């Protein structure tokens, strides 16, 4: 049987998800030998512009150039997989989406106008094209990409995770940093799959695998953390680290800033 044709691409991001593939030191050679690799930006100078069976795309759509490339990749790929947070929800660079305009960001960092270049507000791939599978993480987890790839080779889309980090935290028996120490843990909102790395090290989850789509209860997190003594600005920043494009978090931000403006107006 012909080997499936694979392309690995990156848009705007840190390159960490491709690096995680390269980091599969034990499995890398065997795993890639199942494919004809037609593109692997970070790992190979080989390039062939052909129809692909599977395209793995990391990075967010942050420029017109990104968008153009993404559309080309979508066009030629049977299965398009968004690899990592950037490609799903924009990751940290989407932190101020809906909060700070691109012009403002540009001005702050470069002192020049926005229309000078082709930036777009950072979004995941699915905001622009149809995506067949999303593998979350900042960076992606090796086991998850391994399972996804073996599953795809087997002919199936892998099972996706849509439960929170709390589940894995409990399965590991880690003490709850939120309950025990009052740390501002985002575990209850965050897509699992990391095996609760941070709570396992005694740290509060910062939500690096992104809020669970249509499920994360951001308003409840706000209430819980307010009660634990954290202020609104802190909590909202926190929720936004990896949730800038998440609708509920945007709504929550808006609600709070409106409320704040109102009270300030009254004073």
């Amino acid at each position, binding site marked *: 049987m012909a080997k499936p044709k694979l392309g690995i691409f990156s848009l705007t991001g840190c390159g960490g998800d491709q690096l995680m593939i390269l980091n599969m030191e034990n499995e890398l050679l065997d795993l890639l030998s199942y494919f004809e690799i037609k593109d692997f930006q970070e790992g190979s100078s080989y390039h062939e512009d052909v129809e692909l069976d599977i395209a793995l795309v990391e990075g967010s759509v942050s420029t017109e150039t990104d968008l153009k490339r993404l559309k080309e990749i979508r066009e030629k790929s049977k299965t398009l997989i968004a690899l990592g947070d950037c490609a799903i929800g924009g990751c940290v660079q989407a932190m101020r989406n809906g909060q700070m305009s691109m012009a403002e960001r540009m001005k702050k960092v470069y002192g020049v106008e926005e229309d000078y270049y082709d930036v777009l507000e950072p979004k995941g791939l699915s905001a622009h094209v149809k995506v067949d599978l999303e593998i979350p993480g900042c960076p992606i987890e090796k086991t998850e990409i391994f399972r996804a790839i073996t599953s795809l080779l087997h002919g199936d889309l892998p099972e996706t995770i*849509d439960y929170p980090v709390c*589940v894995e935290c409990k*399965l590991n028996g880690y003490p709850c940093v939120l309950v025990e120490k009052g740390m501002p843990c985002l575990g209850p909102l965050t897509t699992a799959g990391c095996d609760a790395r941070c709570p396992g090290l005694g740290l509060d989850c910062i939500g690096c695998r992104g809020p669970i789509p249509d499920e994360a209860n951001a308003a409840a997190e706000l209430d819980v953390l307010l*009660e634990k003594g954290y202020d609104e600005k802190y909590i909202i920043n926190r929720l936004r680290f990896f949730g800038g494009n998440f609708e509920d978090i945007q709504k929550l931000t808006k609600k709070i800033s409106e409320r704040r403006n109102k009270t300030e107006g009254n004073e």
Partner: protein
Amino acid sequence: MYKKLAKTEFPRFFEGLGNLGKVYGPVNIEGSTYEFREVQSPEEMDLKYTRTMIPPKKFFLGTKETMYTFDEEKAVYTPAIGKQEKTIIFGIHACDIHALKLLDKVYMDELMDLFYTMKRRNTILIGISCHPDEYCFCKSMGTSYATDGFDLFLHELSDGYFVRVGSEKGHQIIEANKPLFIDADEKDVEEFKMNEKKRLEEFNLELNVLGLQDMLDLAYESPVWQETADECFGCGTCNLTCPTCRCYDVVDYVGLDLKTGERVRRWDSCMLRKHGLVAGGLNFRPTRTERLRNRFNCKGSLTEGMLNCVGCGRCTVYCPAEINFVEVMKKVIGEL
């Protein structure tokens, strides 16, 4: 059968248990988090512990355990039953014993689950008496005292332990350690009875379970479900820390050769979105409200005459949203 173990003899008794298998006891991990961990000496344990975060069900229904390995070339599924280790769970509380009795019914009585049963049969349970904290309501659930379901049960006395023997295995342990145990005298019995009486008075939290099942039926449309679901993360902590919750999910993983792999089961939670989802995309409990209501209804219902809640308080203690089980139950049935 009743015996007495003097405090001075306790270390030797404990040491002797090591010959019967791996001994697990309650160990403090952090703050109020306790866990049953392998222990070598009594000093590692905290026998005054309130509750472990993860209940003893973990010993019999692994959090993540391989059920089968498979090999496509050989076309065979092999049950993953390795060497069965003898296990002693030392210091289990009455509520958790009741919970295991319930799990035994589900996993062993009818169409016995192999993986559970093999482990369960290789385990010795040694109970220990406890005192309630503000989250315990086992008294209301009728699970504050265990009359069976254990091998030995130790009740603390001022100078030792009043020991109840609950099984033949327990009897064998006593026999093997004969010199350490003496017959309990009248004074010991009096102290034991007095302690139990005092202990019952220590309970502050109560839940009226008379007719609870009907009350839940009648509250099916209660707004409390929605109100509580608004606060709830749907994170599954309540299920995963519950000693009677037994939902599991099964996933198959293929290895690097694409031919061999394993079928793994892991604890599941009815608070998670996919719990009621069938292939094709239809979800029978699509909202958090429905899932939450289902959870409370399940806990408040009976499995072969036993309540699916033993009042251990874990779901309340460990809930990151601080949802109080008893409070919600009371609100729902109109007692609050």
